[in-house]
């Protein structure tokens, strides 16, 4: 059951990511990204992080991706045109990405026997103990992030405002 769900939503994730890669129009890649994020939310549920799944849906697909979609719609830049791109990106980049993938998968698979496994209800983090840690041990970082958000808002407003 767990494996089936994992395979479905894992596949959905990878499909969405590839779609992001292959689509020419940014709106399509944005929507495929939303699919990736919601399937990730489900994966979080499988791993027992339910509040996080909800947060992922609300914050990522519900807010950030809306921002992206808005910007794409407003700027309406249309399809990507074929520009020369940079040789270095391909020569250096792809081997790098491939190496990255290769190394990580090699490590994870080699160590997989040490890694243990994930059962459906194996480790459930309720919102209460999540919030207990967040608001008692890590209160200061929490407040700092709120300041960060404030700064980000001001920055965004200042940047995006039309010069009058």
């Amino acid at each position, binding site marked *: *059951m767990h494996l089936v769900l994992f395979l479905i939503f894992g596949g959905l994730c990878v499909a969405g990511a590839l779609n992001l890669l292959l689509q020419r129009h940014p*709106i*399509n890649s944005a*929507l495929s990204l*939303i699919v990736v994020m*919601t399937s990730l939310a489900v994966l979080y549920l499988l791993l027992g992080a*339910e*509040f996080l*799944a*909800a*947060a992922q*849906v*609300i914050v990522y*697909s*519900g*807010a950030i991706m*809306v921002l992206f*979609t*808005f910007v794409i*719609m*407003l700027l309406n830049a249309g399809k990507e045109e074929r520009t020369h791109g940079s040789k270095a990106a391909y020569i250096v980049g792809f081997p790098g990405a491939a190496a990255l993938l290769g190394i990580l998968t090699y490590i994870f698979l080699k160590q997989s026997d040490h890694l243990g496994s994930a059962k459906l209800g194996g480790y459930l983090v*309720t*919102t209460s103990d999540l919030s207990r840690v967040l608001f008692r041990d890590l209160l200061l970082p929490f407040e700092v992030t709120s300041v960060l958000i404030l700064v980000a808002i001001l920055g965004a407003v200042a940047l995006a405002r039309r010069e009058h």
Partner: protein
Amino acid sequence: MEVSIWIFLLLSVLKVAVVTVITLMAVAYTVLLERKLVGRIQNRWGPSRVGPFGMWQPMADGLKLFLKEDLMPTNVYKPLYILAPLIALTCALISISVVPFGKEIYYKGVDLFQIADLNIGLLVILGITSIGVYGIALAGWSSNNKYSLMGALRGSAQLISYELALGLSLVGVVMRAGSLRLRDIVNIQATHGLLSWNVFGGLQFVAFFIYLMAAYAETNRAPFDLPEAESELTAGYHTEYSSMKFAMFFMAEYANMITVSCVATLLFFGGWSSPFGDLLPAWGGPVVQALLPVFWFVLKVFFFLFLYIWVRGTLPRFRYDQLMRFGWKFLLPLAIANIIATSLWLAFRAA
């Protein structure tokens, strides 16, 4: 009581089917109810021709919309044009799954009156409403029409800003219930009837009103229905839609209304608990006892729908900047104040 997977699946499918049919029926008849009520408010009879007192009017509307020619304007961004209404309708319908209709009655280990019992039920509802924005945004953008784009942008902006107020207004209720699981929230309110409801006993009266206003804005209804206001932006984001896709948007809107009223009843009006608490004698068999809470729940939801239509008939429409200012400068601070008040009250009571 370990339930085998197959039974669980079968029963779940059965439940989903039942709930969906009922919801769609409810949507249809809410449309009728609205047209009849608005008619009466405007001193005219509503639809009365089709069947006794216009009872078959929804069927007629559905049939009409279904058979209408599905116009597709030319350089419309086809894939999204088709996807948008689907997103809107699915989001509206999914949130019903989390709503508990009645008491926890297990039949072969499966809870009868709730499709999915999640201990973050409330968050799921919030998440799904935030996903709903895409339906409107994409509809407006893909129909390649300046008015629809403007309507979509305004609609989604309104949705996002009021989502904040909606979320914060619920915090008070959650604090009182101590859990996000909808059933716990209702059980907290069901102790002694009317008095323990959040609206009255839980002192969430202000929160209730903030929730109500935010909900109206979420569903683009009543005073906040600027995006699809006929007078300025023709039909807002779904101007280019016709027949079936238009019907989907229409149904999505009413489904959202129903969901919102269900949530309102659950959180503020004690869900399926009777106003008289357990004063009434428990007459009738187990079936009657099982169905009585459902009856109460439906009664309250009907009351909210009535309220919706009533407000739509009476209040004038907000201008866009008034709407935004009201949302951000009035509702949001009020919601935060409410949270602080409830937390102080709870702390005081706990001490």
